[in-house]
């Protein structure tokens, strides 16, 4: 019954406030449509060097799409994404590849290559993008796996890992090239509260120790308020709130408070819908 326990507290040393840094990544008026459906509607955001920026929102609000735009995977219908002032979607593919090598991505389901071991997954970017020898690459991989507590599973197949282990292996792979920026897609989704807190703790540690800038997409409200320096709440493709973690938490906007406190406005609205069919 491990999952019924309360979320363990994050060590206070990891939660200190930090001075604002320079903008590393910026999105301007990002709008995305799939067919007739507008998924994102004029999103602006700036991610500063060294911070953890959290994009919070309910399922289906467009946050993963936004993360794919920010990471250079999917071009938005309108608007621009700039990394260090350069538009990701106007640069040649080889330059985008160079930027990708300076970033890491931790996918929601891990996206580990099932045809190779966990260690081989972690060292793949090193072997492909650098000239270091396989021996050194393996040692780097073992170090990264040790960092996320998975050294014992180095030779295991990704198929044999639990959900939490897959996430940690994906994080180890995302940081294998010592990136400046790491994107996390729902790092705590599908995990029990204890494992989710372990992943949060790991994200905070990596941010603190290596100064890695992080963009985290999540729908987990406690996790978002635990790790974020600054955050944005997305709702139906629009920005509901944006700012420092405490500014968002103390926002006077009732929709923001409803979302944070997990109110169910939809149910009230739906109850209203039937009222007009009742005979007076």
């Amino acid at each position, binding site marked *: 019954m491990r999952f019924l326990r309360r979320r363990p507290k994050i060590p206070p040393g990891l939660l200190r406030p930090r001075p604002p840094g320079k903008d590393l990544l910026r999105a301007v008026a990002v709008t995305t449509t799939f067919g007739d459906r507008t998924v994102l509607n004029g999103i602006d955001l700036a991610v500063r060097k060294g911070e953890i920026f959290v994009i919070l929102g309910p399922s289906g609000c467009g946050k993963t799409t936004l993360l794919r735009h920010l990471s250079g995977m999917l071009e938005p219908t309108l608007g621009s994404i700039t990394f260090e002032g350069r538009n990701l979607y106007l640069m040649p593919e080889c330059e985008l590849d160079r930027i990708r090598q300076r970033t890491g991505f931790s996918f929601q389901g891990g996206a580990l*290559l099932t045809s190779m071991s966990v260690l081989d997954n972690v060292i793949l970017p090193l072997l492909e993008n650098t000239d270091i020898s396989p021996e050194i690459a393996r040692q780097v991989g073992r170090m990264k796996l040790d960092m996320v507590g998975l050294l014992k599973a180095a030779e295991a197949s990704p198929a044999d890992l639990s959900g939490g282990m897959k996430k940690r292996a994906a994080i180890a792979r995302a940081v294998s090239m010592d990136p400046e920026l790491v994107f996390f897609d729902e790092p705590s989704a599908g995990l029990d509260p204890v494992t989710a807190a372990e992943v949060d703790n790991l994200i905070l540690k990596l941010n603190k120790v290596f100064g890695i800038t992080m963009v985290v997409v999540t729908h987990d409200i406690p996790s978002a308020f635990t790790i974020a320096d600054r955050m944005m709440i997305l709702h139906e493709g629009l920005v509901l709130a944006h700012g420092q973690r405490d500014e968002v938490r103390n926002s006077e906007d009732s929709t923001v408070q409803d979302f944070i406190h997990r109110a169910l406005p939809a149910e009230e609205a739906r109850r209203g819908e*039937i009222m007009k*069919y*009742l005979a007076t």
Partner: protein
Amino acid sequence: MDSSAKSVRTLELPPLFDRSSVGTLQGEIESALEAEPDRILLDLGPVERFDSSGMALLIETLRKGRDRGIEIRLRGAGGGVLDFLSLLSVDRLVTVDRERDPRPWIVRLGAVFIPVLDSTESGLRLVGRAIVEFFRDLWTGKTMHRDRFLEEVSHAGNGGMGIVLLIGFLLGLILAMQAWIQLRVFGAVQYIADMVAVSVTREIGPLMAAILVAARSGSSIAAQLGTMTINEEVDALRQMGVHPMRYLVLPKMLALGLATPCLAILFCGAAILGGALFGILAVGIEPGVFLESTRKALKFADLLGCLLKAGVFGFLIASVGCSLGLNVKGGPEGVGRATTGAVVASIFLIIVFDAIFVLALRVSG
């Protein structure tokens, strides 16, 4: 159960408003709607128990009322009914779905052809990029993924060897048998060897080997890359700065381009052996005579053509499999579609290119 007053009709719903009573009630409500009163009042007062079927009838009545311009009102709805309805978006459920206007024929035609053109375009783009990557690697001296290439060669070549040899042998046997039936009429059974050797090396060998490779390796490539695509593994590779083209596609294309000619030659060898076995054991041709006839019938140009054809077919199979696999959409069902599509499209292209080869060789003499 019902009473009417001018243009208002009141229907009293029974205490058990569930699937046991919905059938009868539906008929009553339908006839009430057909009478086209201004208003229908559904009295939920007597309802003691209800289920989803009852609520579905209620919503359906609201929907039909809105569709026909009849005002439907609910009376005496208890807390349970209201709680149930508050879980639904009633407005959305009662909105009448108008059937879309039929699209003009040109649009419907486009809807059929545009996906085919799209997949052709992405296939050609993939082949173009693979060729560019190949020459860029040669130019920059980058080593290709030799281990992945050898793995693919082993999967396509070693893995397919057994079935290719077996089918080749049986097909050679059948060809010799058919040839014997025809040639014995003219007393020309010694030409069995020529017929088997020429037909197998010129046409059947590369064609059958390619079809077997399409069925075995083409489908497996599409399924593998399709699964990797839906599991975001391909995105992960791209995000790590590992180009899927160099890492996944190129080794497969080169491996099939190499393995298919090898399999075609093995197929030809096995077919000639099958034909020889029939000719020697069943027809009684001297082994030396059969061998000599085969040697004379086989021309170097035929063997070269066989290798060239098979190489192109292998490259085509890998291109189709990779293109369809990397463009999978729609989860496991999409993977299934890509796998089937890879085999069908590969075989179609093999036949088309075979015809082109025959024409080109005929023109070039």
